[in-house]
């Protein structure tokens, strides 16, 4: 079993880093090439959502990402917002809503549970390299 974890300060530039890592790790895990764009986009949406939640609630904690490939390629993005405090930033809600709509349309195996987004994609085992 292989695990890659990424954790980053809640800043937009690291969402790009997360997308980069998502695609690289997914490719090595054996996710089909024509799914890689979806994987990048979904990772971006999940991490963008997490960053926005940290920024909105002024949380210093790092956004956490975990990728595993025992079985399907599975990604878990976790933010530190526990649902407390005021959450009546309409702008934020609209953006969250858009991100969640994209995720739902993009990812067949998706669970969004508060501060945790879980998603997975099938892998075809590489029989041999080159």
């Amino acid at each position, binding site marked *: 079993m292989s695990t890659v974890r990424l954790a980053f300060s809640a800043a937009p*530039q690291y*969402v*790009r880093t997360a997308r980069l890592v998502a695609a690289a790790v997914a490719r090595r895990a054996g996710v089909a090439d024509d799914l890689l764009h979806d994987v990048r*986009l979904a990772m*971006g949406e999940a991490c*963008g959502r997490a960053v926005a939640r940290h920024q909105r609630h002024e949380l210093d904690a790092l956004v956490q990402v975990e990728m595993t490939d025992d079985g399907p390629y599975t990604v878990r993005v976790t933010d530190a917002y526990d649902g407390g405090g005021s959450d009546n930033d309409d702008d934020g809600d609209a953006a969250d809503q*858009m*991100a969640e709509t*994209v995720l739902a*349309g993009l990812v067949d195996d998706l669970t969004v549970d508060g501060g945790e987004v879980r998603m997975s994609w099938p892998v075809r085992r590489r029989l041999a390299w080159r």
Partner: protein
Amino acid sequence: MELSLTTREIAGHEVVHVRGEVDVYTSSVLRERLIELIDGGARSVVVDLTQVDFLDSSGLGVLVGALKRLRTTEGDLSLVITSDKLLKIFKITALDRVFALHDTVEAATRVPRTG
């Protein structure tokens, strides 16, 4: 990786050519340019996304925001999109039915100015 924007006027339309990735990191730059154009009096804005290889929900949000702003002044926003990858995210969010989508800048600027 980064975003680059070029604007030119074609037959009464303001055409914004976008190149790069429109995402949480760069969408604010596109937002500011569009607001600038609209506040400057543009009524028909065409956003050319043919050179964009990545667009996420924050990019969609910027486009929706610009459309709303234009509609308060009877203005119009249309998009030029050729890639299936980009089209997919518009379809997922049903925004393909909200925006006027075109295959080429020519087609987008040929459309008569409404309102």
